[in-house]
């Protein structure tokens, strides 16, 4: 165990820093790395590949050390290692450190990110080969109507990819909120670079700016959350301070010596139940000393009564909730704001589809598997701190996003945009899952989705590479030309649609989506309020829509007859370096979610479940809000003695219903898509005309861009014009007037200078000249004279000092 505490951080640090090394090397040596920087690709790939091996080593070590605890649901403390590598600065209480927080989630994410990134690096070596020589951008015409040609930027691409991997891994491994924020922003800037890779294209430029600015809005909320947490808790660390062997440091009373954020909110003393930390209560004006006695949401009756009692006492400051509870909500919402931006949730989702302007490997890496996953990851990491009310917000946002993005995806014809909206929609699934209390379900879907979404993106890249267009209306019948791509893409579609045999086994998406729907159902059943059933229904409908648009995409691309013969004729299967990664990812897309006994992904994730989140919880403000135990959405293992028979029965029922619903909705979507596009029994254009209004609404993406344009962009432009006018007339007038005054003054000054000052200076100069002329004969140019003068001077000084002055 103590070895793990030393070796795991070492291994993961290596995995984390290798891409940085690659980045630094490419930055300084990139252009000289082989022809047009081709070795930069090898270097970056080698770096991330080694990172993957190190991550796998870490995983093996973890399983070796903690494998025996797999699969057992636990209610106690999560196993983790935390510590710091480097202290950036300490100002008073504020400690900014580079640290780590390693649990099985971290390791799982490391393996996933590095594996996918490695595949994508290989893939990109093939995809980006155009950049190896002079690159003529087909989408740009210069002002004189010619083609725009520039030197290739192969090495720069891999430079940013390396930096991106480093940043993403930094987010995953980071041990405190401040470090997370730093790497969070690094991820943002990397995506800015990569989206704007074709910087000469206006659209790419705009998309990069959009992504960056929209993310800033979310980050502003995140900063507020950070401030709320730091001001009240005084620490940024996630976990409790540990000694070198991974044991939590304790003081004499046996309490945790330096608790992290998680322990502040869900302390060991309080049986890991959510409780407003003393710091927050104090900051909110409540009496921090009595906090431990009265606050908190104990499951037992007595605690509830006490809480009620306390509520009456502080009715003025905290309403019905305990003091500081709102601060907890603000902190949670703030952090969630950042995640909304990064994970492209409603209403900040608009940047993600535009971000498809970047090269396809970028889309696959940045905007499907990792960067947007960072938001979900942070929600998952920060889960213990979210109050039930915040979770409700998360669920609502996820629900809206899920539905909205899925509907838009139905009408999109750009192959990458379909996938982009699908990504947004799936992220909405994850948020929904987290929001309804399905921590495991959300994280599980995050991992499985990363695999099949990157696979899908890379397949689409392969298609684009072959036909040189994004437009699906110009494709069709490509499966004969590109068998590998077609099959792997079909696997990806099946996985994302959640195909599988109910109650038995299926593609990875089947298991994760099933878990989400089950928890949504569980949540709906636990709350009487029918409004909460919306989550369940939207999730189920979303599954159908997902299957529909995914198979629409596949049919339009690969099945049927070619719609554009010329493009079809030029199409060809991609090189080996591109389709081998596809096959690797396809294998994972199939099997990563299988519930094999022992080291399955779910069991691994279960180990990282934040302490106390399986217990049933209720809201303090919305007192009707109840969060059920996530374990009770699945068949409860026979060994679990905590569960009652009723709970067992209910869990089985939920499982059965969710399984069937997930399967049947997906099947329905699939059949519908087959009817429309596969067998062509129904003509899509008819339907389109029939629902013209809806179609326009969807094809224009719910008018979101136009709405933001009207609300935010135009007013800002008008304001800017007004300020500009003010600058030019008022401010410039003042400045010009002062210039004229200064000119006048300086003329007068000039007169004084020439007559008075110059006269004086000239006089001194003449004196100096006369003295110099009389002294020139001393400068004989003979070195020996100078030396002797020094000696005689020294001796004279000495004689004077000792005999005349008698010092």
């Amino acid at each position: 165990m103590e070895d793990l505490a030393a070796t795991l951080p070492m291994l993961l640090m290596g995995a984390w820093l290798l891409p940085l090394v690659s980045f630094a090397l490419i930055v300084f040596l990139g252009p000289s790395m082989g022809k047009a920087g081709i070795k930069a690709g090898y270097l970056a790939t080698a770096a991330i590949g080694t990172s993957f091996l190190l991550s796998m080593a870490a995983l093996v070590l973890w399983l070796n050390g903690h494998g025996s605890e797999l699969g057992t649901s636990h209610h106690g403390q999560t196993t983790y290692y935390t510590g710091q590598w480097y202290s950036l600065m300490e100002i008073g209480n504020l400690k900014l450190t580079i640290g780590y927080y390693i649990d099985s989630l971290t390791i799982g994410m490391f393996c996933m990110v590095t594996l996918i990134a490695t595949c994508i690096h290989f893939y990109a070596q093939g995809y980006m080969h155009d950049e190896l020589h002079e690159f003529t951008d087909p989408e740009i015409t210069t002002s004189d109507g010619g083609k725009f040609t520039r030197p290739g930027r192969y090495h720069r691409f891999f430079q940013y990819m390396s930096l991106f991997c480093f940043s993403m891994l930094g987010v995953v491994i980071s041990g405190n909120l401040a470090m997370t924020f730093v790497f969070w922003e690094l991820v943002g800037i990397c995506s800015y670079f990569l989206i704007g890779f074709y910087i000469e294209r206006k659209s790419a430029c705009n998309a990069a700016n959009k992504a960056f600015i929209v993310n800033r809005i979310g980050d502003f909320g995140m900063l507020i959350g950070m401030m709320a947490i730091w001001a009240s808790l005084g620490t940024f660390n996630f976990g409790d301070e540990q000694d070198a062997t991974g044991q939590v440091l304790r003081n004499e009373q046996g309490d945790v010596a330096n608790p992290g954020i998680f322990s502040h909110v869900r302390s060991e003393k309080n049986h890991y139940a959510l409780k407003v930390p003393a710091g927050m209560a104090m900051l909110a004006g409540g009496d921090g000393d009595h906090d431990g006695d009265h606050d908190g949401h104990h499951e037992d009756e007595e605690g509830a009564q006490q809480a009620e009692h306390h509520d009456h006492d502080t009715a003025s400051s905290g309403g019905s909730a305990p003091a500081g509870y709102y601060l907890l909500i603000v902190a949670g919402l703030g952090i969630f704001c950042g995640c909304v931006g990064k994970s492209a949730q409603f209403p900040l989702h608009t940047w993600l589809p535009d971000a498809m302007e970047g090269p396809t490997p970028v889309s696959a890496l940045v905007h499907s598997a990792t960067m947007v996953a960072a938001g979900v990851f942070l929600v998952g990491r920060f889960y213990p701190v979210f109050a039930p009310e915040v979770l409700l917000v998360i669920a609502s946002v996820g629900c809206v996003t899920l539905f909205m993005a899925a509907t838009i995806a139905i009408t999109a014809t750009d192959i990458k945009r379909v996938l982009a909206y699908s990504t947004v929609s799936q992220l909405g699934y994850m948020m929904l899952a987290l929001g309804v209390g399905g921590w495991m379900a959300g994280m599980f879907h995050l991992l499985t989705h990363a695999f099949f979404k990157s696979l899908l993106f890379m397949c689409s890249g392969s298609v684009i590479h072959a036909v040189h267009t994004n437009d699906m209306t110009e494709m069709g019948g490509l499966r004969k030309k590109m068998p590998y791509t077609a099959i792997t893409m079909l696997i990806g579609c099946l996985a994302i649609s959640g195909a599988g045999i109910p109650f038995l086994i299926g593609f990875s998406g089947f298991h994760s989506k099933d878990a989400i729907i089950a928890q949504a159902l569980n949540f709906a059943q636990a709350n009487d309020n029918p409004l909460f059933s919306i989550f369940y229904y939207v999730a189920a409908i979303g599954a159908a829509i997902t299957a529909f648009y995914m198979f629409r995409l596949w049919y339009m691309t690969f099945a049927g007859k070619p719609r554009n013969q010329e493009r079809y004729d030029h199409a060809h299967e991609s090189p080996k370096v591109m389709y081998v990664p596809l096959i690797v990812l396809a294998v994972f897309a199939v099997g990563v979610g299988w519930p094999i006994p022992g080291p399955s992904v779910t069991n691994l994730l279960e180990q990282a479940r934040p302490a106390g989140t399986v217990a049933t919880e209720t809201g303090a403000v919305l007192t009707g809000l109840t969060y059920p135990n996530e374990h009770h959405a699945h068949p409860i293992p026979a060994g679990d003695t905590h569960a009652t028979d009723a709970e067992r029965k209910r869990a089985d029922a939920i499982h059965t219903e969710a399984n069937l619903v997930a399967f049947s909705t997906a099947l329905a979507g699939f059949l519908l898509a087959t009817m429309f596009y596969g067998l062509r029994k129904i003509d899509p254009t008819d339907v389109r005309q029939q629902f013209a209004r809806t179609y326009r609404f969807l094809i224009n993406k719910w008018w979101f861009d136009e709405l933001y344009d009207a609300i935010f962009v135009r007013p800002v432009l008008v304001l800017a014009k007004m300020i500009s006018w003010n600058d030019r007339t008022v401010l410039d007038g003042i400045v010009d007037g002062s210039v004229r005054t200064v000119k006048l003054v300086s003329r007068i000054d000039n007169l004084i200078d020439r007559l008075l000052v110059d006269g004086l200076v000239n006089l001194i100069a003449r004196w100096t000249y006369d003295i110099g002329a009389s002294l020139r004969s001393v400068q004989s140019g003979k070195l020996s004279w100078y030396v002797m003068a020094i000696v005689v001077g020294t001796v004279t000084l000495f004689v004077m000092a000792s005999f005349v002055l008698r010092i």
Partner: protein
Amino acid sequence: MTNLLTQPVGVSHYMAVGAVMFVCGIVCMATKRNALGVLMGIELVLNGANINFIAFGSAYLQKDSAMSLGLDGQLIALFVIVLAAAEAAVALAIALNFYNNHHSIDVDRADELKG
């Protein structure tokens, strides 16, 4: 007169040697016309000074060892040596430059700036 060989030496003896070397250096600088000869004189002067530093830094050359400079003497001597090396490099470069321009190494020929 006491036999010099049987007496322990002290700082004074070192200072005497230093003084001789120092004065030799001075005379060398004053009398040599070759620029490199002058440079050698400078080296002698610096060494004469260094001997004093070492002597005062030595723990056992004075009656009262607490009066010694201790390690400071050696450290300063070290700095002198290093700076002397730097000085020699620059002076040599100047001398070579002078030689390139004047085809002579005689410092008395370098008198363009004389008054």
